[in-house]
């Protein structure tokens, strides 16, 4: 065996000697080539593509960013604000002119209420102004706990949680529950804070036509079909319907009983934004659930702010503890923001007291709303948008000129005309490029219990006069 192997080796060496030189050279080159291929990098292309330091410097030198903000022209309609001197209560002084206030969300007139002021003052003397900390770090005051339990009691729910700013309430509440991959069905007319909450949640968002239950039904059915295709995914996809009680943008009421039926039919949870309806609708001001007589436990989460009817600052969510408690660790605006100044919470408690003591106030408000609603019908050139029960109505141009700017200016002229005659109104403001479904330009007409019948008469005739003068 060994000798045989040796023989082969000898033969090889011999063959090596006998082979022609060109052959050996060729083989040698091939071997070297293989070695080179083995050790060289595969992608040489990129290397040549890489920028040299000098080129980088040039690029840096060359790059010109956009200005931080575009220049705003001096006559931009929303640049110069109307200046209000003095409290914006029943009477309001706008740009030096005292007017009857039809422009503030002070529905129950609690802004100017002495009891509320005194309560805030007492609180100020004990607690100072700021809380100097978030709820978790010594920013929970006895006043906050009291307000939370009072709100829960008022709304007849298990638990309530307060936020220090109205806008942040629903905007924080939605992303606390709805995460990436979950599905939210939302009304097209939903207000801006809902839109921001949805955006922060990164969920799949499906818009249905405003108050159109058939459209919602269609979307839910589509989703059901989708679920049948992928039952495993469907098992972990949470779904929510987000609606407003009384819509900020359209001044009408959501069809809550039908929504609740849908909820159980398709197993979707309902989040209800009641910033306008809380303290307005219902016999005791509990909002749209009371208005329709819907069991409040059927609504998974209700959120509202305390900046309209309550006339303080802040917002709250209420519902079952199973739902609400989750926000104490997951609501960003709750955990990471300083808590509500105690004096504002104290004022809200007093406002709740007043609402509980005298539910008559809601009847008065309803009557005023209805009378304003009926009186404003038939304003020349203007269409009244909303329902009779809504204290926040919109006046929209009957015939749009086609240009939003022109419409806006026309409406502004009407507002100015009324301001001259001591009736304060305001244009409803929107960020035109940010809104998902931009509402048409409108004048806001806000009804409060403080307005007397004569004042309402005066305002209505003033608006009609203005419309006649400006539009025709």
């Amino acid at each position, binding site marked *: 065996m060994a000798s045989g192997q040796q023989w082969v080796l000898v033969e090889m060496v011999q063959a090596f000697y006998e082979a022609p030189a060109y052959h050996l050279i060729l083989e040698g080159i091939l071997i070297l080539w293989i070695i080179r291929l083995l050790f060289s990098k595969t992608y040489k292309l990129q290397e040549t593509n890489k920028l040299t330091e000098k080129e980088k410097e040039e690029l840096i030198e060359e*790059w*010109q*960013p956009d200005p*931080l*903000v575009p220049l*705003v022209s001096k006559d931009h309609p*929303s640049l110069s604000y*109307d*200046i*209000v*001197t003095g409290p*914006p209560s029943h009477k*309001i002084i706008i740009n030096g002119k005292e007017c009857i206030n039809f422009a*503030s969300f*002070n529905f129950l007139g609690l*802004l100017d*209420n002495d009891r509320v*002021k005194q309560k*805030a003052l007492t609180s*100020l*003397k*004990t*607690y*100072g*102004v*700021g*809380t*100097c900390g978030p709820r978790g*770090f*010594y*920013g929970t005051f006895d006043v906050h*706990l009291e307000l939370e339990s009072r709100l829960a009691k008022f709304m007849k729910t298990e638990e309530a949680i307060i936020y*220090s*700013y*109205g*806008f*942040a309430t629903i905007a924080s509440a939605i992303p606390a529950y709805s995460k990436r991959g979950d599905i939210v069905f939302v009304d097209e007319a939903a207000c801006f*804070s809902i839109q921001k909450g949805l955006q922060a949640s990164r969920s799949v968002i499906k818009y249905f036509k405003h108050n159109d239950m058939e459209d919602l039904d269609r979307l839910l059915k589509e989703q059901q079909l989708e679920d049948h295709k992928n039952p495993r995914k*469907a*098992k972990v996809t*949470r779904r929510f319907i987000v609606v407003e009680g009384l819509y900020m943008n359209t001044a009408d009421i959501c069809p809550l009983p039908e929504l609740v039926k849908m909820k159980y039919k398709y*197993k*979707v*949870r309902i989040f209800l934004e009641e910033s306008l309806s809380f303290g307005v609708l219902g016999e005791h001001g509990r909002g749209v659930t009371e208005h329709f007589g819907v069991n409040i*436990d059927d609504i998974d989460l209700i959120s509202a702010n305390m*900046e309209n009817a309550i*006339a303080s600052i802040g917002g709250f969510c209420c519902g079952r*503890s*199973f*739902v609400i408690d*989750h926000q104490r*660790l997951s609501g*960003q605006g709750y955990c990471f*923001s*300083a808590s*509500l*100044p105690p*004096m504002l919470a104290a004022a809200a408690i007093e406002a709740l007291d007043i609402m509980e003591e005298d539910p008559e106030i809601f009847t008065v408000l309803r009557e005023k709303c209805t009378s304003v609603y009926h009186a404003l019908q038939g304003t020349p050139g203007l269409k009244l948008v909303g329902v009779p029960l809504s204290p926040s109505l919109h006046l929209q141009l009957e015939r749009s000129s086609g240009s939003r700017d022109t419409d806006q200016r026309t409406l502004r002229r009407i507002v100015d005309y009324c301001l001259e005659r001591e009736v*304060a109104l305001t244009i409803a*403001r929107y960020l035109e490029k940010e809104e998902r479904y931009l509402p048409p330009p409108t004048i806001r007409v806000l009804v409060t219990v403080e307005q007397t019948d004569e004042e309402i008469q005066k305002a209505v005739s003033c608006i009609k006069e203005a419309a006649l003068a400006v539009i025709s």
Partner: protein
Amino acid sequence: MVRTSTMVLNGNLTVQMNQTILQNGKQRKNGHVNGEKRTNFPAAKGVSCRQYSPESFEQAPMYVAVLTYLGFGIVTLFGYFRDFLRAVGLEKCHLAQEREEQKEFVPMYQDFENFYTRNLYMRVRDNWNRPICSLPGPAFDLMERVSDDYNWTFRLTGKTIENVINMGSYNYLGFAENNEDFLKTVADKTLQYGVGVCSSRQEVGNLSSHEELERLVADFLGVESAMTFGMGFATNSMNIPALVSKGCLILSDELNHTSLILGARLSGATIRVFKHNNMHSLEKLLREAVCSGQPRTHRPWRKILIMVEGIYSMEGSVARLPEIVALKKKYKAYLYLDEAHSIGAVGPTGRGVTELFRLNPADVDVMMGTFTKSFGASGGYIAGNKELVNYLRSHSHCAVYATAMCPPVVEQIVRAMKCIMGVDGNTVGIQRIRQLAENTRYFRSRLKEMGFIIYGNDSSPVVPILLYMPGKVVAFSRAMLARKIGVVVVGFPATPITEARARFCLSAAHTRAMLDKVLHHLNEVGDDLCLKFSRRKISPRPSLFNETDFELDS
């Protein structure tokens, strides 16, 4: 590293800055320097580098990290065990349950989502959300609460624990006060205006007092113009989307506050994160961004916005502003500075980090801050040049959709700010700023002497003491409360898992006696619980502390 120094040389940086950038080469995860001190040098042009503000992030011994993980491991195992017991019905579940009618719905929460809350947080949650029933001043009264079911529910006993020293509130300048003379104007405003506004700024919520406040803020900060908003959190989350949008790049410090992150996310801009206060990391990102443009399309970025905080509230570190300004100038980026914790609290006259580093406020494009902390009120501001503020007035989400700031709060801010500025010749404000600086220096150096590992800048009134292990965090907080000292402790997920800490916020209203009491107890508790992890040799106590104590008038 050589490349780094050539990179910055044609910026207007000084040689010192190159050194600091080179030092960053030693940096480890989370931007913590191993071992020795990290040093900041201001690099502003024409300013002498007298200001010297060392920052330290000492690393704990190895065994600490091992024990910390072990601790978490044990409680997690126990958590699984108890979940098992609950599943088989041997242990009662105290959590609120879903209604019977909705059991068929897709579960509201995934089981694992709440594992941490259910099994770890529940055991220790008596250390947070402690309700108080007095002013959040230098000392406060806590409402005593007990739990009969291991923290699942709490019951208020109706008793109060009085005079607990408050080391948790952000009351830096002591403006959380209820002295009737000081609050007279605030009380007047309350009586005149009530507490709400019931409208947004763009509609009819723009009170003349808002405009007055905004002029004052601009004046205070030394910038052209300012705008104020009703909530500090919302100031960030609702204004950043107005400034940047798709096609823009945000470079954000990894430890930025949630409100900044939320604002960045809502804006639709691309977000990239750089290591905490790490200039090397920031420059690398900037350079890459400018050179390679947007991903996929390779179009150049429309603009680049660097977002940093003045003082980081969990770290106690101060943004390395001179270097950031130099970088932003070189790469033509814009700078968004969140001074929530630093405004009023640092700088010789309380003007924040720009003053601390003697920079021109005009070098910072967007100056943001809040009124919650140093001013003892609520709300926030954004200040800068006239174009910026005009744009925000017409395009800020806050101005259009959110209720304006309420008048008593406006008055509180005006009062506090005027006091700090010494408008009517008073010196109370400046005394408080000095007192805070003095307290900070005293407290920090005593802690170092005792052998605690503390993080952050020597001039930062936020003082985190590292406790590391989850068990110690809880024991520490309870032990301190038993000694009538209210502290804030934070752990995972607010901090990295191995870096749980207690955070002390100093206030000008703390007297030397209070601080001494706190330090005395800290020393004892530190020994009891073995919290003194530092391995540094501390030089004998320097003679910086003179015994003259600035007492506040209030």
